[in-house]
């Protein structure tokens, strides 16, 4: 088993046993800054080496998926889940966007299993982060004359994680592989260790949200498991359609299945104050993140194999 998963379990178990283990918030920030920049830089470097003509159609398709996913889940959440409009929109935004931590675990999983994948995947992370936020906010508030587009753009494009991902991407793209090389000591060589520590912390955080699940009942748990599974199928189909490898399809399915817990909560909290942030985080962190990390990713890999017609 990949050791990073064990770090996640260590954090989870320590917190469930009420250990005093806790990392200072500044360390959590530091680790996530490193993760975001590294993923951005990696994506940018790939961008620099690939012809735009191959990338552009994929990019467009992925962005479209980012807009469509929340539009599909919103009515389900509203009607089937009987969530309030603001909460349904918020959940749709969380699940339509992506979790960078889950992405990193998927990539580590493929590396550990020595499965190849298209190296421009980080680009998709960046592309998928934003559209669902926009859709979610519009679903909650509707488009009226008073819609403050400027504030909307600010909240979606200038959040911390987008700036770091996009910034890393642009820098990587501008300087290319050789330019990024001198930075590898901090960003690439320590990546797996940084991810391990990050997952240790995620385990600690997840435990708190697991215990808040009780309050929200079965429907939330069902959505927390059902939405990622359904989205993973859409992601896997799209990956196959775009001609991605099995590894690439696995990553795209994982991205579709993952739910944001950094960028989206912050943006929705200011833009849609009526939505209950505890509800969406209970789903995203208490159910979907551990599910994806522990069970989902290998599942999406099998799904990708099946869809691609590769014999298992």
């Amino acid at each position, binding site marked *: 088993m990949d050791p990073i998963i064990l770090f996640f379990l260590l954090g989870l178990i320590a917190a469930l046993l009420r250990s005093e283990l806790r990392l200072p*918030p500044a360390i959590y920030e530091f680790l996530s800054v490193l993760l975001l920049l590294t993923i951005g830089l990696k994506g940018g470097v790939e961008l620099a080496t690939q012809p735009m003509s191959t990338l552009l159609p994929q990019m467009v398709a992925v962005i479209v998926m980012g807009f469509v996913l929340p539009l599909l889940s919103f009515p389900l959440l509203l009607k089937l889940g009987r969530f309030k409009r603001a909460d349904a929109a918020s959940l749709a935004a969380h699940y339509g966007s992506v979790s960078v931590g889950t992405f990193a675990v998927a990539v580590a999983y493929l590396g550990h299993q020595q499965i190849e994948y298209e190296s421009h995947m980080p680009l998709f992370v960046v592309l998928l982060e934003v559209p669902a936020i926009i859709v979610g906010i519009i679903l909650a508030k509707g488009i009226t004359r008073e819609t403050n587009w400027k504030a909307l753009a600010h909240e979606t494009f200038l959040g911390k994680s987008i700036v770091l991902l996009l910034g890393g991407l642009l820098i990587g793209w501008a300087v290319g592989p050789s330019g990024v090389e001198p930075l590898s000591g901090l960003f690439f060589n320590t990546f797996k260790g940084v991810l391990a520590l990050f997952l240790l912390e995620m385990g600690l955080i997840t435990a*708190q949200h697991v215990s808040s699940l009780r309050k929200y009942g079965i429907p939330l748990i069902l959505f927390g498991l059902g939405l990622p599974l359904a989205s993973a199928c859409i992601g896997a189909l799209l990956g196959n359609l775009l001609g991605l490898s099995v590894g690439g399809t696995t990553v795209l399915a994982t991205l579709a299945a993952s739910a944001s817990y*950094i960028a989206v909560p*912050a943006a929705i909290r*200011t833009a849609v*104050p*009526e939505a209950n942030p*505890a509800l969406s985080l209970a789903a995203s962190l208490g159910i979907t993140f551990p599910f994806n990390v522990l069970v989902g990713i290998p599942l999406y890999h099998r799904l990708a194999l099946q869809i691609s017609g590769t014999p298992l």
Partner: protein
Amino acid sequence: MSDKKQPKLVVIITESVIETTLLTDLEVLGVKGFTISDVRGRGHRGTRAGEWGIDGNIRIEIVCGESLSDQILAFLEQKYYDNYAMITYCSDVSVIRPEKFLG
């Protein structure tokens, strides 16, 4: 500003995610000075442990005149109380150089 004489300390404890918006609002109300610390806590909206992301609280303290303090409290109650984790309290303080606060 010709504020009533008794200087007040207004303390606001709320979600750190709204810091920027809240400070802009306070400025519009006429708040010239404030002090912020990063805190954590528990209340009606559950525990906010401040360990990551949007989970933290801030504590804003403002020394000001009585009428401004009333305005702040009324404004906060109307704009933020329904949707955000927030408490406020207020007490009498004495200051040196009151013109620093009442102006």
